[in-house]
């Protein structure tokens, strides 16, 4: 039986909960695979080889790093689940703005801690990641599709369409046209655009779509009342410290 692991590093465990919410698929999966390692849902230790490993959360502590390196060695396929694992997550959004010591003193009041901490980072900073499933939380349908494809020996297909695609096809009123800051045009779809359907601008939790036009996005956001700095911060919320404004001379621009 295929051995599957689902583990979390630093994060809210929301993605793992979302996986637990895939009820119908999980019931089927239980007959097809062995969830050898799933600390959130299952007791017991497992130290063997894994065929498929899903990792949630960012690497923020020494413990995270140790765990990740050890698991990578045991896993044939590693999938980063959620925006923390893919990009560092919301906790990484100000990585480039403050020193670690300053942050820790601010939060804990002292610099000395029982274990080593570092700036929240995506998994790919430490190990090779085979597939990325961003989202805050991860999208259930996309998770099931990924599992189904991999179990069938096929690589999943993820064209990085912008959120506008799903939003427009759901026939929502365009929030940018209404003056609401929205990152839809530069963010990676797959979520089904639930936020914009409820009138909340896209926060870009799934990161960039293919070849995003950040410059035009920033100019649209500033036209809607944000300062340039705030607009950049808005785009950085989920994109983490990996974010940079793409120039128009770059590939695909």
């Amino acid at each position: 039986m295929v051995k599957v692991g689902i583990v979390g590093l630093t994060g809210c465990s929301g993605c793992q909960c979302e996986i637990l919410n895939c009820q119908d698929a999980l019931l089927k999966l239980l007959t097809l695979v062995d969830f050898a390692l799933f600390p959130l849902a299952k007791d017991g230790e497992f130290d063997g080889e894994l065929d498929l490993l899903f990792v949630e959360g960012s690497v923020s502590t020494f413990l995270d790093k140790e765990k990740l390196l050890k698991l990578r060695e045991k896993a044939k396929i590693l999938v980063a689940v959620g925006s923390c694992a893919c990009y560092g997550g919301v906790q990484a959004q100000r990585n480039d703005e403050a020193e670690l010591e300053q942050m820790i003193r601010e939060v804990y009041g002292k610099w000395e801690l029982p274990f080593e901490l570092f700036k929240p980072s995506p998994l790919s900073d430490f190990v090779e990641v085979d597939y990325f499933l961003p989202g805050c939380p991860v999208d259930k349908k996309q998770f099931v599709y990924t599992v189904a494809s991999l179990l069938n020996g096929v690589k999943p297909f993820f064209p990085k369409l912008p959120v506008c695609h799903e939003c427009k096809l759901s026939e929502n009123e365009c929030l940018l046209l209404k003056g609401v800051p929205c990152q839809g045009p530069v963010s990676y779809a797959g979520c089904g655009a639930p936020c914009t359907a409820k009138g909340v601008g896209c926060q870009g939790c799934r990161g960039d779509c293919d070849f995003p036009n950040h410059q035009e996005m920033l100019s649209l956001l500033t036209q809607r009342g944000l300062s340039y700095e705030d607009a950049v911060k808005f785009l950085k919320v989920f994109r983490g410290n990996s974010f940079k404004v793409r120039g128009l001379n770059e590939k695909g621009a």
Partner: protein
Amino acid sequence: MEFHIDRAKVLPKANLWELLEGLKKRYKLIAPVKEGEKFAFREISDVSSVELNYTRTILPPKKFLLPYRRERFSYDPETMEFKSSFKAEEQVIFGIHSCDLHGISILDSIHLKENPDPRYLEVRRKTILIGISCFPDEYCFCLSTGTAFPDGANWDLFLTDVGPDYFVSIGSPKGDEIVLTFKHLFREIEKEDLELYKRSTAKKKRAFNEENLPDLERISQLIELEYDSPVWEEEAKRCLGCGTCTNTCPTCFCYTSVDVPDLTGKEVKRIEFITSCQYPYYSLVAGEHYFKPTRTSRFRHRYYHKFVGYPYQIEKLGCVGCGRCTAECPAGISMVKTIKRLRGVDEKELREVTE
């Protein structure tokens, strides 16, 4: 028939609701409704929600003929037996503007002429199209594309607002049947009705502002000759590549298909979903090669396909002047303005167009 117009009737406005009720009883009724500040074609449960005076819906009625996501078929990967679960439903789409009717006629040419798609044909046969007249806003340019009036299109009934009544043109045997079924709601044409009808054409024509209209004479040649114009790159700089222009277009038809296996590997579904030429992956082949590698090439491609590609394929422009791509573009890119810039209209005139 007194005036030799045996293909038209008059429907007093007060009778319209009863007609809609009657249609709803017989078919799945689809009509425009107001949602927020915009409009959308929806399946109607309460006919009083039908919006008669709307400008444009966010999405064209295309979505009821070509769903944005559908299963082509499923197959068993062991036996390679294919099966289709496709089923078409009898439906009436009410309240379609002339531009969208022309859009459907373009889709008809694409899906029914060469390599006809039996699914489209079945849906199309089971769909009754009832059009309604409209007045242009600042984004409409159907007068330029020759789609402001429903002549030669492919509808069943067309309602022209002539004041107290609708002048109802009958376009097909199916349309005629509806009129017969509800004949108590219609009356014969009088001489005055005809006068009013004729006047309504002139009235709509006058409602266009010349500045909002592009000159589409020899547009195919213009786009081909201006292929290397700097205008493309200048406009493309503002393009987000979000695909809104193509997703809201009544004539765009591109889609991608992908095989989705289920968890057990016993069934694979082949899913088709609508896509856009503005997305980079659209031209991506295995081996990481993009045939349309730049934003400019993708931006230009849409114009090129609309004004050069469609005329080559189906001998009609691919644009019906509905104005959706411009009205819905988050970056405010205007098709009319781009065409005017390619034509070399001077800056002053240009400012008047955009302001």
